């Protein structure tokens, strides 16, 4: 297939009808460059080609929940404002295949509803063979026809997004199986597999016929042989299933290991968070202790509130009782007796109305007055005692309160830090880590079980094959003795031999193809890699499922250690090798369509690609940005004389891009 033209009508950013003619093999100018900044519609062109060929409305890189609208938004808006009949969105691709001209066209009818919702409906698909003047409009037939040119399962090897091309080296088990089938189809290995299946079917039918017409020991042995063959078939199927299970488990373990690695990278932060959480716990204990001390102060707290009143009343009492007065030590009864007897306690006589007598009378008055104020004195003593107790207690309260507030503030700061770390680690919940470890453990156990079953099955297959071999020998002996149905016996023998020969041939062919793919991929990789890459990588290995591995100078697998850019180069080496091997002596007649292929490549890798790809492909369509593909890169390709067409995508208004052809030189 060589793409000649692409016409888009109201597709993605391309408002109205727009057209690209691609460089052709005439005059060897088969390189087309489409230059556009981000958002100008390069991927729109990529979408248009995959939509036209395969009816794809989503690309692999689109997220599953994204709502991709293929119809041009401006056209939809204008239609809503005007007649509101709907917009026709058409993609038409013209290509040649085996020197015949074809046109494939797909049409979508789209409506923009009043609420802004967009409805798109595929209206029509049509494949027209210009030579035969035939048109196919049935979707399934169109798909089958395109599939016969380029198997959909390997389309991403020829139409690819450069940013994601290295994913081909990271495909899941299921993807690898599909890709392997696609590659076998591309390399025509599946034709041989189909032929072998036909032979197996014939062999089974002949065996059944022979079983029907034979008798005695021969029939018994033949029946036994057929049973064993059936059993063997079952074992082989089960073995394949177990292999798939084992690969799937392996891939899950790998996925979990990647996640665990991410945890590991955050382990420092997690341990710091744990430390903070422990510190927060300690602070919480300290806060509770401070709070407890404050609570224990409650008895004093209420008294403190009365401190002002206590001082006020003390001042009142002072006024009432006099500040300097001491409580009298002389009792009133004693004074009364001295005054009645007119004799002092020392025996001295006191004369009535003498100076001493008057002193004693004054003292008696004072003592009597004091005795009347006894309660007040007692009250004042109580007050003084309490005030003494409360001295400095207000400072104690403040200090206790400060203690609580300080602990609360410290705690708040720690929790802020923990919250911040939680934000950073929110995708790394520790529960997930435990769950992942548990899941991994389960998977490892499951893997051991599956591997055991697999080995057991291999043993059973080996035994069944031995039994089958013995039965075949027995049948040969019995055949001589029976002398009947010689024709059928010979027929079975010949079919069996053909089947075995076919098996050997397929194995040999597949081995040859894989060896050739390895050789060419290695050559391509060496051409494309820079010097340091060449030093590290010795060989490309194509595994049985057509997945890739690279081997280093010490003969060890090295794929896990190479960079993303190197993975991209490896994928490109394999793709070009695939095109070379599938093409045989000439280049495979398929385009290499690359959307932003150089983004992750270093200068040397890119330079090597620009020199090499034109030598190994029939058509190269490059969608590039100015960052990855400047004037010097363009000049390099132009000077080689391969560039046939050069376009620039220019934005004319929001959401509308114009495809403008520019002179090559």
């Amino acid at each position, binding site marked *: 297939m060589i793409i000649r033209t692409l016409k888009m009508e109201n597709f993605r950013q391309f408002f109205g009808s727009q057209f690209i003619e691609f460089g052709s093999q005439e005059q060897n100018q088969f390189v087309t460059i489409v230059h556009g900044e981000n958002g100008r519609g390069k991927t729109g062109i990529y979408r248009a080609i995959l939509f036209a060929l395969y009816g794809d409305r989503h690309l692999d890189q689109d997220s599953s929940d994204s709502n991709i609208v293929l119809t041009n938004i401006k056209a939809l808006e204008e239609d809503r404002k005007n007649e509101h009949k709907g917009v026709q969105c058409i993609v038409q691709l013209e290509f040649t295949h085996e020197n015949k001209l074809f046109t494939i066209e797909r049409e979508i009818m789209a409506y923009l509803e009043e609420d802004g919702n967009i409805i798109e409906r595929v209206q029509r698909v049509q494949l027209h063979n210009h030579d035969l003047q035939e048109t196919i409009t049935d979707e399934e037939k169109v798909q089958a026809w395109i599939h016969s040119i380029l198997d959909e399962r390997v389309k991403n090897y020829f139409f690819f997004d450069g940013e994601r091309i290295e994913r081909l080296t990271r495909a899941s088990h299921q993807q690898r199986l599909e890709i392997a089938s696609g590659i076998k189809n591309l390399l025509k290995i599946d034709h041989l597999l189909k032929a072998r299946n036909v032979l197996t079917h014939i062999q089974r039918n002949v065996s059944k016929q022979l079983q029907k017409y034979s008798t005695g020991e021969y029939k018994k042995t033949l029946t036994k042989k057929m049973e064993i063959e059936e059993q063997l078939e079952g074992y082989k199927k089960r073995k394949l299933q177990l292999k798939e299970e084992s690969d799937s488990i392996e891939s899950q373990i790998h996925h979990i290991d990647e996640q665990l690695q991410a945890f590991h990278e955050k382990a420092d932060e997690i341990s710091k968070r744990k430390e903070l959480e422990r510190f927060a716990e300690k602070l919480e204990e300290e806060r509770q202790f401070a709070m407890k001390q*404050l*609570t224990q102060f409650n008895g004093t707290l209420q008294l403190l509130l009365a401190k002002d009143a206590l001082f006020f009343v003390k001042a009142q009492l002072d006024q009432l009782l006099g500040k300097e007065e001491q409580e009298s030590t002389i009792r009133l009864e004693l004074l009364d007796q001295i005054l009645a007897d007119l004799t002092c306690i020392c025996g001295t006589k006191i004369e009535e109305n003498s100076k001493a007598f008057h002193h004693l009378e004054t003292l008696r008055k004072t003592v009597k007055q004091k005795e009347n104020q006894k309660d007040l004195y007692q009250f004042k003593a109580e007050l003084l*005692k309490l005030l003494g107790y409360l001295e400095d207690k207000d400072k104690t309260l403040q200090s*206790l309160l400060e203690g609580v507030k300080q602990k609360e503030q410290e705690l708040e700061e720690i929790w802020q830090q923990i919250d911040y770390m939680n934000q950073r680690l929110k995708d790394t919940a520790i529960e997930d880590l435990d769950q992942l470890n548990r899941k991994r453990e389960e998977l490892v156990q499951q893997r051991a079980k599956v591997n055991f079953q697999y080995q057991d099955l291999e043993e059973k297959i080996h035994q069944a094959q031995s039994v089958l071999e013995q039965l075949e020998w027995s049948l040969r002996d019995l055949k001589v003795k029976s002398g009947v149905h010689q024709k059928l016996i010979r027929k079975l023998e010949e079919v069996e031999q053909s089947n075995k020969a076919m098996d050997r041939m397929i194995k040999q062919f597949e081995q040859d193809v894989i060896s050739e793919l390895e050789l060419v991929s290695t050559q391509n990789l060496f051409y494309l890699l820079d010097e340091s890459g060449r030093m590290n990588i010795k060989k490309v290995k194509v595994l049985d499922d057509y997945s890739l591995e690279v081997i280093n100078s010490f003969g060890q697998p090295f794929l896990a250690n190479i960079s993303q850019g190197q993975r991209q180069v490896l994928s490109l080496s394999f793709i070009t090798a695939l095109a070379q091997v599938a093409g045989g002596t000439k280049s495979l007649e398929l385009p290499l369509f690359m959307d932003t292929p150089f983004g992750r490549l270093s200068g040397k890798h890119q330079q090597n690609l620009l020199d090499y790809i034109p030598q190994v492909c029939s058509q190269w369509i490059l969608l590039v940005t100015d960052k990855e593909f400047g004037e010097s890169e363009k000049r390099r390709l132009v000077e080689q004389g391969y560039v046939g067409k050069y376009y620039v995508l220019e934005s004319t208004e929001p959401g509308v891009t114009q495809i403008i052809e520019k002179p090559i030189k």
Partner: protein
Amino acid sequence: MTPVDQPISTEALFQAYTFTEYQRTVFKCFAFKQTGTILEEKELYSHVEKIADQGCQHLVENILTDLVFVDENGVVSLKPGQELEMQKKLSTFVSNQLINVPF
């Protein structure tokens, strides 16, 4: 033993003799401040009961507003889980009273 579905006691839990010597001094102080005399015990408790009632009301209405709820019968209860917060508010209130001398 009291059945579980009956209140433990309907009698007042606080009685005069549960007060400390210092508390009694404070009561006498409040009474003396207002009456200028030292009241007999019975009169004294009746007097401070009124003051305590007003104090409680002041606290509920001004200091502990966020921490209490009053039911339809006017019974004031502390919101569950707010015990420590109340402790802090009371302590802060007392501390502020000691700093902001009212005279």
